[in-house]
């Protein structure tokens, strides 16, 4: 993990089609693939997209709105009240972009650690909101959540390498 000075930070942007269709594709795959491969439900593709976009754009405001939008979209496909994923991903978007300002998030070990950490934060927030506000009967299991965090981090690194081609220097 390396710290960078402000001069070394590269801020990226994404074209409008990419900014719209990549989150939609992530939501679609998240809804479709578990039908054929049930184990895929441990992955959270929309969360990985939020982390990637937030870290690349390095703007906390843009990051939190990206997280809010993708989270609400993910909420709308469930039968629970909307806002549970929205709030959790808003925090993640804000945090990932704030971290992206301070750290070099292009290297693989950094991406692994950051994705693992934000996945756990996202799950904790989701658990608190779902149990506290919506009164869902959820059970927390540290082994399950940590294993899912590592699995998401590995998938995230692979996806980020693919999505790096979509970045445009701002």
């Amino acid at each position, binding site marked *: 993990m390396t710290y960078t000075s402000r001069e070394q930070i590269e801020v990226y942007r994404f074209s409008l089609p990419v900014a719209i269709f990549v989150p939609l594709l992530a939501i679609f795959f998240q809804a*479709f693939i*578990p039908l054929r491969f049930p184990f895929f439900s441990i992955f959270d593709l929309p969360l990985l997209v939020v982390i990637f976009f937030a870290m690349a754009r390095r703007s906390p405001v843009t990051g939190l709105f990206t997280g*809010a939008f993708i989270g609400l979209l993910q909420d709308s496909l469930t*039968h629970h009240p*909307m*806002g549970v994923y929205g709030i959790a991903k808003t925090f993640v978007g804000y945090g990932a972009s704030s971290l992206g300002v301070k750290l070099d998030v292009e290297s693989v070990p950094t991406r692994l650690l950051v994705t693992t950490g934000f996945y756990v934060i996202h799950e904790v927030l989701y658990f608190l909101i779902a149990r506290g*506000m*919506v009164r869902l009967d959820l059970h927390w299991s540290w082994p399950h959540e940590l294993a899912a965090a590592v699995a998401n981090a590995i998938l995230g690194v692979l996806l980020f390498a693919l999505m790096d081609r979509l970045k445009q220097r701002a």
Partner: protein
Amino acid sequence: MDNLMGRYRNVTFLAAAIFIQILGLAMQVKRATENQSSRLIRVWAVTAVTPLEKGIVRLQTGSSELWHNYFYLRGVRQENRDLRQQIEQLQLEQVRLKQDADQARRLQALLGFKEQYIAKTTAAQVIGSSGSEQSRIVYLDKGSRDGIDQGMPVISADGVVGKVLTVFKTTSTVLLINDQQSGVGAILEQSRLQGVLKGKVTGELVIDKIMPDEQVKAGDRVLTSGGDQIFPKGLPLGTVAKTTKGNEFQLLTIKPAAVLSHLEEVLVIMKKEEHGSDTSAAAPVRAADILSQRLPSVPDKPAEPVATSVGAAAKPASTERAISTTTGAAASPTKPPVTSPQAAPLTKPANSAVTSATPVPKPAIKTTSTPLVAKPVSDKITPPSTGDSPQ
């Protein structure tokens, strides 16, 4: 103030976004309990995502059909012959089953049970899921335009899948029975124990609050009880996987009959019909008549001369009419009542045959004109009222 806003701009935006979402969430949670929900963004999101899902599924189905109908035709002729043989065997089996069903229907008409029959169904493809482990719903490719309505039960070839939760124009969502917000009226096939089949957050199916002294064994089939007024009675829900005894109650873990993690095609029950007993509409049917239909080969008992004197004023002819046989009485019409003026109010069973050569004084037989009628009962069998036999 401007410096303050500038310095904490990002945090302000974050707080505002979180606050708005919490407000929205709170409104929904409150409104959800009053049967209202915000649907606009749901409609947009579903409209944006489901056409792609439908397209992919149709492409997949089309490719599969192209392969199977044009390229993978090996052994079709032999398969055709085997299937024809199978059809002939099934037709014979069907005739036998129809006879059994007719008999069962007659008996049910006698008992006056109401049954719900599945009158109309429509097939639908599963095109997507919620993508969340905490929300066990699936999306179907049919909606209100195809006649789907909220609350309709959904089944598969193996068993019960769930019920329709929300309906859009071309899509609908189904709440699976293993979702934590789902509950289905259930009955165990062997022990006839009734309960509510609920889903857990892990996706397990359980029936809880069973008394600890109830004997339930693994492998016992669980069917729908019909008590929830949503699912027709008798549909397979699953089998008992294990029982866990607690301090006050025992918990049954159920293995679902339908494979809920690999759903492709389902049936939505669009119409149920209640078939009730027609005993109230039809003329009263005597139990003797029904028995004679079941046993047509049993001959009528020949009429026997009777020499019994029933009271001083009883006539031999009237006494003869007082004799009855159960099977023989099936064909004979109801006779007018015979009452002896000096007869004690003593009733005699209908199937007794009194034969006596000597004029032994016997208690008078009071008869009524009411024939034996099988009364329609809803849930349990009660013996028909035994009035005195008119014959």
